[in-house]
């Protein structure tokens, strides 16, 4: 199944490995790790929108891999067994800031919104405005499942925050040096 990053269906996949939840990663990444043997065919998988965790070999989108054809019987229902416990293996919160897992695994990219606003007000440079504009895009893109674009906007907001901050520090240092020399 072809799945572009612009798809409305979420492309944020999580998998259970070694008692910890890994992800989010894209489906291509997931397939690659499965093909490389890092994720066994019976590993529990969850994607945003799915009811609960399922073994990898019972997820139709992932059934294209040849390894899957030998891995288990697609007719049997998913075992309702969580390897560690409901707390850890409950589906991860879609909004990491809403749940107890805030900032942990499976988070959305940070927006850098507060940093952008602070830079805009405190640094007197137009870079902070660019940061705000990018920061404002992050959550919407992440909510629509377009994680690559969300991360890109997040990184750009971060970049312009640092540009604003760094340029201001340089200006202040130069001015302080100039003031000290002329005094």
């Amino acid at each position, binding site marked *: 199944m072809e799945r572009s990053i612009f798809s409305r269906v979420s492309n944020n996949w999580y998998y259970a490995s070694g008692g910890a939840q890994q992800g989010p990663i894209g489906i291509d990444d997931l397939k690659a790790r499965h093909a490389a043997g890092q994720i066994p065919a019976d590993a529990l998988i969850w994607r945003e929108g799915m009811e609960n965790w399922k073994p990898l070999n019972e997820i139709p989108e992932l059934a294209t891999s040849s390894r899957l054809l030998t891995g288990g019987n697609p007719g049997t229902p998913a075992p309702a067994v969580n390897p560690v416990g409901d707390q850890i293996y409950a589906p991860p919160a879609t909004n990491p800031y809403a749940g107890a897992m805030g900032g942990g695994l499976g988070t959305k990219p940070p927006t850098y919104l507060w940093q952008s606003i602070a830079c*805009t*007000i405190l640094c007197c440079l*137009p870079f902070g405005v660019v940061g705000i504009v990018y920061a404002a895009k992050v959550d919407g893109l992440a909510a629509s499942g377009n994680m690559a674009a969300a991360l890109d906007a997040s990184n750009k907001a971060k970049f312009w925050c640092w540009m604003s901050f760094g340029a201001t520090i340089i200006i202040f240092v130069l001015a302080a040096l*100039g003031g000290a020399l002329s005094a």
Partner: protein
Amino acid sequence: MAALVRGNFRGLPPCPLHSTTGLYCPGCGVTRATRALMHGDLVTALQMNMVAIILMPFLAIVMAREIIAWGWQRPEWRAGTGGRWGIGLGFAVIIYGILRNLPGLEFLRPGGA
């Protein structure tokens, strides 16, 4: 730095944006407002940059949280994304910067009120 701010601004640079373009950015007047606050003059501080003075306690809290989360690797301290209200606040700051430069709205400029 505190000595510089408390002094008569020798050594503190003029805003590079304002001195090159003549524009008033959303942060114009913050240094003078901070100086006024250090002298206990809230009225002058508000005249210099009302939005910054109102936002300052709030921004201090969120930035302190972000710095703790970043510096000590404590993600639970992150200030959150702000959601729609945060984005609205961001654009309000940008619009404030635009309005300050419009004719008839000179009272929004530092010392304009």
